[in-house]
């Protein structure tokens, strides 16, 4: 339920509305507004231009980096074409003689004794 104070407060707000009114803008309002809009636009434009330049530089750098990374791969292509097992086998091939030679027993000395 609304009390007496509520009504008084409503009346006060109403009087306040009437007392304040809406002030008029000065003659410079519109020119100043457009000056601010244009200054913000030029800032946005230069920011966009800077962002474009940065993006272009980033793409160029990525390409250069890509080329740089690709060059060592081309020179070591033979190594790259081998599988891990093949490369390992090639690096540590044991002497084939060690397995192929027959075992020789020196029995001659014993029989002559």
């Amino acid at each position, binding site marked *: 339920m609304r009390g007496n*104070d*509520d009504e*008084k*407060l*409503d009346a*006060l*707000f109403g*009087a*306040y*509305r*009437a*007392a*304040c*009114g*809406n*002030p*008029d*803008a*000065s003659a410079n*309002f*519109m020119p*100043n*507004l*457009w000056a*601010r*809009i244009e200054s*913000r636009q030029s800032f946005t434009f230069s920011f966009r231009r800077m962002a474009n330049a940065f993006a272009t530089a980033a793409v160029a750098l990525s390409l250069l980096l890509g080329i740089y990374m690709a060059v060592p791969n081309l020179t070591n292509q033979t190594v790259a074409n081998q599988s891990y097992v093949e490369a390992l086998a090639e690096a540590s091939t044991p002497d084939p003689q060690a397995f192929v030679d027959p075992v020789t027993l020196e029995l001659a000395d014993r029989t002559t004794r």
Partner: protein
Amino acid sequence: MLVDFGLITRAQKGDAAAFNEIVTAYRKRILGTITRLIARPEDVEDVAQEVFLRLYFSLDQLRKEEVFEPWLYRLTVNAAYDYLRKQRRRQEYRMSDLSEQQVMLADAMAGGKAEQDDQHHKKVREAVDSLLGSVSEADRILLMLKEVEGLSLKELEKVYNVNENALKVRLFRARQRVLKAFGSAEKKEGAG
């Protein structure tokens, strides 16, 4: 609505004349609202220009006609908040400035009935400003929009992006605080 949606559509396409028309239609109302929200007449135009600047750069986001005015109010409230926040940071709110304004107001007053009216208006403004000074900034702005600017709950819903019930609760609490301050001010006046 003070302008038709066709004008807004033209402004969205970059028509400067259409944008000028929108500003001309709304600037008085926006200036009035900002005057009541920030209480520093010398900065009102600056804040109003900031509102229209934000409007200019965000106009292309507007899709529905009916949200234009609440949206403009939201921009106004946000610009006022930003201004008040900056002011608080700078701690420039000095009583000497206020009295300077009051002197200027008094100087501008004409004689006779006009002077009496001005005195009365001044008293009312001071009373309400002092009452609303006793609540938080958020409550003050909300009450100002509802009670002085006359925005409906539906419009406030769009301005604040909250549902009606939450808004009613906030309004009720803010009003209760002002009523409390109002009651104690009346008691003081009665005793004095």
